[in-house]
């Protein structure tokens, strides 16, 4: 498919092109493969963001919160609670991070509930003096663990958790006595704890969405290029066949319509028959049958028979699969002779694995070659053509050799 993208675009050449808008609109992917590609891209992009989020949360928890907790442990109201809560969150956070990276996250709301309980407990155990220091580690760390807990969900959940966290902090601040400086600090801290996690959360969601969209657009572009290519190929084939049909029937029909040809003229009748035989064969050519060559010859024989010519079609063996070009070269030269035939005709096909010989014999009669198959023989690629008349029979033979 990728090669198709490099194909030159011919919007005016391809009226059948399914989508003629100049900017390809990303279509709803309809096949499982079309769905899989953008999803894979989005998944890869999302995985990167998860790793970043887990790393931030654990690094903050270990590198910033832990030293502060340890250095200030004597000054907590209940040091054991603060330290125990730190350990609990460290373990839970590690498990949640690993599960998130494996694609099977822990259930978000129990985890969030646990974190909020820890939040309240640490605020209560930190004491007034440590309320706004780094040792009150829930300020800095917990927001990142909220992000891990509700990863992949709507941002409202995260905002609700952070708001609850802010509420718990507000209660702690008020319980310790409303000092204007503390309230100002509190607003600053809440702003700090909100902004970064929400930014990372929203940013990653947007990036994943963009990646998915771009992949979908790209897949749609591929699909469109392939469709256009197929349409152009179909068009080309139809044009080729139309050219063949025109050369078969166009001129005689034009002459008849223009009055240059007299329908009573035997020569004109013969041209009509030839044109009809070619058309019939061309129609048969596009049929999907197990034995196309015989099918096409039968179509020609059928037409001759309906025009009152007793024709004997004898086949020996089954022709191997032959390209349409070879079949045309085998059948076409005989069509002219068949249109000329009077009295009877014997059409035979002898097929082996490496050779197919088609022969048409009709009684010879006075008069020149009207369809003009050249006497003698010539080679047309892998197909040899022989035509002769000896006063007794007219004998056309085409022979394909592998």
């Amino acid at each position: 498919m990728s090669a198709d993208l490099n194909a030159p675009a011919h919007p005016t050449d391809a009226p059948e092109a399914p989508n003629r808008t100049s900017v390809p609109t990303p279509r709803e992917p309809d096949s499982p493969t079309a769905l899989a590609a953008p999803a894979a891209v989005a998944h890869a992009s999302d995985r990167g963001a998860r790793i970043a989020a887990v790393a931030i949360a654990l690094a903050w928890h270990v590198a910033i919160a832990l030293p502060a907790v340890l250095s200030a442990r004597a000054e907590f109201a209940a040091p054991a609670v603060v330290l125990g809560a730190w350990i609990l969150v460290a373990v839970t956070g590690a498990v949640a991070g690993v599960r998130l990276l494996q694609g099977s996250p822990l259930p978000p709301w129990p985890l969030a509930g646990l974190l909020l309980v820890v939040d309240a407990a640490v605020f209560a155990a930190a004491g007034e003096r440590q309320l706004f220091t780094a040792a009150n580690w829930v300020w800095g760390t917990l927001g990142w663990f909220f992000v891990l807990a509700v990863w992949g969900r709507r941002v409202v959940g995260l905002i609700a958790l952070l708001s609850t966290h802010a509420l718990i902090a507000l209660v702690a601040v008020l319980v310790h006595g409303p000092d204007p400086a503390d309230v100002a600090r509190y607003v600053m801290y809440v702003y700090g704890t909100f902004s970064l996690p929400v930014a990372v959360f929203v940013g990653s969601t947007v990036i994943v969405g963009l990646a998915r969209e771009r992949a979908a657009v790209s897949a749609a572009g591929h699909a469109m290029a392939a469709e256009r290519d197929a349409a152009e190929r179909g068009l080309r084939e139809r044009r080729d066949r139309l050219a063949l049909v025109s050369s078969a029937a166009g001129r005689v029909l034009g002459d008849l319509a223009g009055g240059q040809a007299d329908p009573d003229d035997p020569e004109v009748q013969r041209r009509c028959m030839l044109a009809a035989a070619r058309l019939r064969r061309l129609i048969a050519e596009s049929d999907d049958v197990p034995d196309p060559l015989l099918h096409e010859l039968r179509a020609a024989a059928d037409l001759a028979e309906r025009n009152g010519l007793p024709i004997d079609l004898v086949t020996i063996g089954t022709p191997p699969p032959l390209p349409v070009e070879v079949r045309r070269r085998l059948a076409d030269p005989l069509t002219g002779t068949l249109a000329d035939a009077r009295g009877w005709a014997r059409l035979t096909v002898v097929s082996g694995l490496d050779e197919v010989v088609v022969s048409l014999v009709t009684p010879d009669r006075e008069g020149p070659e009207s369809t003009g198959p050249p006497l003698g023989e010539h080679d047309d690629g892998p197909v040899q053509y022989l035509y002769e008349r000896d006063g007794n029979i007219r004998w056309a033979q085409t022979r394909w050799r592998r």
Partner: protein
Amino acid sequence: MGADPVAAVTGDRPVGVAIVDDHPVVVEGVRAWLATEPRLTVLATGDDPDAVLRAAPHADVILLDLRLHGRMALDKLAELSAAGRRVVVYSEHTDPQTMLAALDAGAVAFLAKHEGREHCVETVLAAASDRPYVPPALAGAMVGDPRPDRPMLSDKEREALLLWFQSMSKASVARRMQISEHTVKQYVDRARIKYTRAGRPAATKAALLARAIEDGLVRPEEIGIYRSQATHDRPTP
């Protein structure tokens, strides 16, 4: 063949023909065809081979419709051929397999019903003298023989068979191959003789072969190598 071959075998007596067919109209038609040839006389007709042969025990040639009362009479054909009866099979079943099976079973010749009077008379006359006659339909079956153990035909033999099948005119084949009509007939007959080794052994095949050697059509050593692999029903030597 230049001299009258039939006279050599049968003296002045015309060739006696028995016709076995379950369609009276066909029997009458074939009888009428053969009546145009003074060297042929129809001795008996009927739809039962045994009854016909009881009526005409000295018939020189039996014209046998391969499909009698709805079944293929290949077994009967083999039995008659093994007994040395010259059987010309004629049938509307012109698929190559049937034709080749009839040859294997020992038929002297196979004639498609649509092939007409001339081929019919020629075939019966040739059969009476143990000489091969290959009508165009049979030539087609031989040239398209797909069996792996088919006799090896030379290029000329194959081409002569093919062109004869296509044109039904030995004169045209001769012109196309730039050889004489006599040589065309020789190629075709040689190809036919190579088929005498295929299938079951039959007295008729031996007779065909002997006559072919006698006529100088083939040399005995030429025949030996075309051994059919269809030997399952031959007695072990």
